[in-house]
C-alpha cells in the first residue's frame, strides 16, 4: 500500500527538478506545504535504526559471552585450589 502511494507521488514529481540538485542546506528547517518524495526514504531510515540495534545487541552478546567464559575459568580454578588444599 505504502509503495503504491509512493509510486503515485513519484510519477507526479518526475517532471520537477530532482531534490538533490539543490545546494545542501545551511540549516535544518521544519517543512511547510505539501510533502513529496522520490527515492523511498522509509527503508533507509528503518535500516539505519535496525542496524544500530543489531550492532548494539551483538556487542552486548560478545561481552556477555566473554564474561561467562572468564567466570567459568575462575570457578574451575577455585575448584583446583580447593582440591590442592585438601590433599
Amino acid at each position, binding site marked *: 500500500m505504502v509503495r503504491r502511494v509512493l509510486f503515485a507521488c513519484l510519477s507526479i514529481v518526475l517532471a520537477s527538478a530532482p531534490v538533490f540538485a539543490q545546494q545542501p*542546506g545551511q540549516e*535544518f528547517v*521544519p517543512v511547510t506545504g505539501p*510533502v513529496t518524495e522520490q527515492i523511498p*526514504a522509509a527503508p533507509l531510515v528503518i535500516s539505519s535504526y535496525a542496524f544500530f540495534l543489531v550492532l548494539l545487541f551483538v556487542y552486548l552478546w560478545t*561481552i556477555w559471552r566473554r*564474561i561467562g567464559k572468564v567466570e567459568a575459568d*575462575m570457578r574451575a580454578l577455585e575448584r583446583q585450589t580447593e582440591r590442592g588444599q585438601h590433599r
Partner: protein
Amino acid sequence: MKKLFVPLVIVAAAMFAYAPVAINKVPLESTMLLVQKIFYFHFATWMALTAAIAVCGVASLISLFKGSKVADWYGVASAELVVIFGVFGLFSGSLWGRKAWGVWWQWDPRVTMATMLVLIFLGYLMVRKYGGPGSEKLAAAMGIFGAATAPFVYKATDWWRNIHPPTTVMRTLGEKFPAAWDLVLYCTGAFLLLVVLLLAARVRLEAMRAELDRMYLALED
C-alpha cells in the same frame, strides 16, 4: 557505583524504547523530508564517538606515561566503542547520503577523516590482538595519535566546504527547528548514557580477566 548500574540500564532501555516514538512525532525537515530523521541517531553516535575517543586518548596517555593497568582497560574498552559507534555513524551517514546526495559514498573531507578515525582505532585493536607481548604500549601510541587527529575531523567541514552539512546547522538548530533540537539533545543523552554503561561492562570484563590471571599466577606458586 555498582548499585547504579542496573537502574541506569533500565533508564537507558526506556530512553531507547521511547526514541522511535519521539522520532516519528518530530516534524519533517523542509529539504530532506523523511530521510533527515536518520540524523537524530547519526549525530548522537558521533557525539558518543567523540566521548569514547576522549576517554581512549586520556587513558592511553595515562597508560603509556604512568603504566597504569586500569587506564589500559579503559583504553581498550573505549577503542572498541569508537569502532562500533564509528561504523554505525558511517553506515547511517551512507544511507542518508544515498537519498540526500544521490550516492552511497562521497569522499567529502569529514567522511574521509571519520573513516580514518575508525581505521586508526581498528589498528589499535589489531595491534593489541596480534602484536604479541608488550602490545598495550603500541596500542596506547595509536590511541594518542587517534585522539590528536579527532579535532581535525570536526573542523574539516568548516575549512573545506563540500557536500556534508557544515557545523552551522547545529548552531542554528535551536532557533530554526526547536523540536529537532530537543530530540537531538534527548538522543545524544541516551547515547552518552549508553557509552557509560558499555564502558562499565567492558572494563568489568578486563578487570575479571586480570583477576583470573592473578589466580593462575597464585596457583603456580
